């Protein structure tokens, strides 16, 4: 569904990612893991057109999309839930969700809104409240719900568990898995490596802008280097 080759993006003269190759097969969950500053967010932003890559190719549904404006990428069926969630703090929860469906003109928007409310009942309770008044976990649910309102074929999630309490983290990962099982392909960026590898089909490890390892998620999880660096030493068993 998504095929990235040789993707390179810089900030000024600093290359943040250097020739990344990555494949996201239709229907799968692919996890992209790596330490702080490895270039995960840069990769995600390059995919949706918020950053213009210097080199490389992004093929989405058979079409080259590198350099395409973000609203066109959304239109093709790729949505990003950004790091830090980007909730519209001064707009109501309901308006946040409506804005997710900004480009849609079909009649099923309302039905999709009901689906989001069913998935996240707390959002329905708070639909008249301003987005900024929600807790971190609720904001993450809102950000995911809002992205789903665009009916993406590929959903990109940038550190959805960041800063959340353990119980909420478990909730978020369960929801990600459900969304995938309902047919949405997912590219997941996480620092919560254990959980990310548990739900993923494939995984890529990013270090200082380069993919250093990739494969089936359970194989990556068994890799000694990954266990050492991300899973708290060799004792860690998934």
């Amino acid at each position, binding site marked *: 569904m998504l095929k990235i080759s040789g993707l390179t993006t810089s900030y000024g003269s600093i290359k943040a990612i250097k020739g990344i190759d990555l494949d996201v097969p239709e229907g799968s969950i692919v996890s992209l893991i790596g330490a702080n500053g490895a270039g995960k967010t840069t990769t995600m932003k390059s995919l*949706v057109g*918020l950053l213009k890559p210097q080199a490389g190719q992004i093929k989405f549904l058979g079409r080259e999309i590198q350099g395409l404006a*973000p609203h066109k990428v959304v239109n093709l069926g790729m949505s990003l839930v950004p790091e830090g969630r980007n909730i*519209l*703090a001064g707009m109501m929860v309901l308006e946040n969700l409506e*804005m997710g469906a900004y480009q849609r003109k079909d009649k099923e928007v309302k039905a999709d809104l009901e689906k989001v409310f069913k998935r996240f009942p707390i959002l329905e309770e708070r639909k008249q409240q*301003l*987005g*900024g008044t929600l807790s971190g976990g609720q904001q993450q649910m809102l950000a995911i719900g809002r992205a789903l309102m*665009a009916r993406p074929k590929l959903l990109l999630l940038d550190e959805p568990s960041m800063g959340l309490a353990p119980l909420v983290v478990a909730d978020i990962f369960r929801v990600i898995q459900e969304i995938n099982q309902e047919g949405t392909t997912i590219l997941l960026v996480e620092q919560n490596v254990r959980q990310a590898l548990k739900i993923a089909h494939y995984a890529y490890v990013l270090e200082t802008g380069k993919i250093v390892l990739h494969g089936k998620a359970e194989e990556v999880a068994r890799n000694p280097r990954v266990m050492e660096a991300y899973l708290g030493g060799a004792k860690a068993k998934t």
Partner: protein
Amino acid sequence: MFWQQLVNGLTLGSTYSLVALGYTLIMGVLNIINMAHGEIFMFGAFVGLFLVTYLKVNIFVAMAGAMVAGALLGTLMEIVALRPLRRRAVSELAPLISTIGVSIFLENLALKIFGPQSQAFPSGALSGAEMQLGPVRISLVQIVILGISFGLMFILRFWLSKTRVGKAIRTTAESIETANLLGINTNKIILLTVALASGLGGIAGVLVGLSINAVEPTMGLSMGLKGLAVLIFGGMGNITGAMLGGLILGIAEVFTVAYGASSYRDAVAFGIIILILFIRPQGIFGSSTRQGGRF
């Protein structure tokens, strides 16, 4: 006396509100002060004047014409002076300087086209009729100004809060990046917002030109400064703040004159603004954080 002055103050203030709304909208989406707004306002006044004087159109048609002219100037400014700067990483001050350039250009252009002298609307533009409403004498000009200003503010509020495009403007005002991620073509929305803000400026020019019955190339400067003061006073990009701030400034000015301190009119009005800013540095409706709640 009191009610009469209140009506006069509201009339004057509603034009300030309208001008400040133009600043506010652009501040909202682009986070810059449009220093050319006063000159767009002035151009609107001249376009209205010329439509009435030479094409002999109805004053309301002239207002619509001034609005269109303002919107066109705004569109041009966005395409020529603002958008090219957004594409590359330039200093945050660059667009501000760019709008100063546009303002100087427009003022000189007006001097060249319309000449330096002050001009008045022809006497038939709007009848000088007055009405007695209880203790208040109100002229037709005042009624038109109040009606158009409050009408436009009401429509704008409603449009921003209820329509798809209005919501897209609010989203862009909260964060251009988020708006992009949601599939909004933010260049289009910004263009629309700048055109809308400038259109409001253009029509405000005709209203003010009518009320003081004088239109001149320098009128943009003093009005621009007042609009700017209201922008800050109202809370940097808050729409309710701009509306209320304009009314307060207008009422303060009129009462200062009415109670005998006419030569201190601006001093007192701005003194009140400074005083309120001491108590609420973020403005009457501003939030102390940069996040959210703008419109």
